[in-house]
């Protein structure tokens, strides 16, 4: 959990595939002006745009196989 008074920088993790991981809580403003809020200790922000719970990752970025 990150409080504004914390001295330490907020920690993010970027990955080649998969979400951007950010220390929560997080407020995201979308293209259309809507605001999404998550108070989870860590928030997975979707970067693949395939999530059905956008802007939060729902694992839709995963590689898929036919079988």
């Amino acid at each position, binding site marked *: 959990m990150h409080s504004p008074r914390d001295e330490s920088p907020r920690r993010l*993790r970027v990955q080649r595939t*998969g*979400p951007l*991981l950010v220390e929560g809580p997080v407020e995201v403003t979308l293209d259309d002006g809507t605001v999404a809020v998550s*108070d*989870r*200790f*860590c*928030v*997975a922000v979707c970067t693949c745009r395939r999530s*059905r*719970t956008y802007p*939060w*990752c*729902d*694992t839709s970025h*995963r*590689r*898929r*196989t*036919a*079988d």
Partner: protein
Amino acid sequence: MHTGLYEPTLPTDRGELSAATLAYLRRASGSLPPAGDAERSDPYGDDLQLALYLCYELHYRGFAGVDDEMEWDAALLAFRRALEDRFLAALRDDAPLPADVDSALAELLVEPVQGDGISYHLRDDGTLGQVREYAAQRSLYHLKEADPHAWVLPRLHGRAKAGMAAVEYDEFGAGRGERVHARLFADLMRDLSLDTGYGRYLDAACPQMLAVSNLMSLLGLHRRLRGALVGHFAAVEITSSPNCRRLAQAMERLGAGPAAEHFYREHVEADAVHEQVVRHEVVAGLLEAEPQLAADVAFGIAATGLVEDRFTEHLLGSWRSERSSLRHAL
């Protein structure tokens, strides 16, 4: 009189091992079967799995009418050890060990376009009756959701401990009692008109479900199996999110109710985060500190796949032949 926590009642036996355990717990008998009896019993069968389940439940909530002292009764612990040895040896024989942790995790991270597990069936063709059966079975774990995994915390250090504690904090409601995942599951059960009493469906549960729960207790209670517990937890969290999406769709299609849908929707989002934290912090942190545990982590992943596959086969097999997957009807 309301006495706070609901105390589970003892179930009926399923054979000699479980009958002897029940008699011992009731203090109706002062002795337990010799280790050889456990060695000759079916490691996945009703009898051994119920006997083991009874031993483990003493560490969670115990049973009405059973002395709390039984939790650390030396003879019962020795007997439990024989049951565990039989179960663990079978898992080690039957669960194909992956080459390494990375390839085992990579395999779980690939999603089939059309899979054939329980969640696919419930989403596409499941009936309300099957959804209720599924919830009654799973209640053996979900009403103590994340409890078996909390035992690993003192056995982890640094990054692995911090990551595991953060995920557990989320499982336990992030500071709010009404958000504890076990509580969310009880709310789901209420939507499905099921009894939310802890242990209420123990008698009805199939041995495959007992094995799912027993595996977690086994790995959680033994420090020497901490690597396997971490592998197990990673497997659960990685596979959860897509499964929960389909289960949420099943609940929606069947009009199961808002709490029933919410339990699974919350897990779509929560477990998309949890699987990341478990892989990057817990698994990686543990293997950085204790690289010799890699084979145990891989075993935990494989054993989880094995017991879950057996559970899936039993449920889908029962439903295909239009039988209940439970030992008696709801």
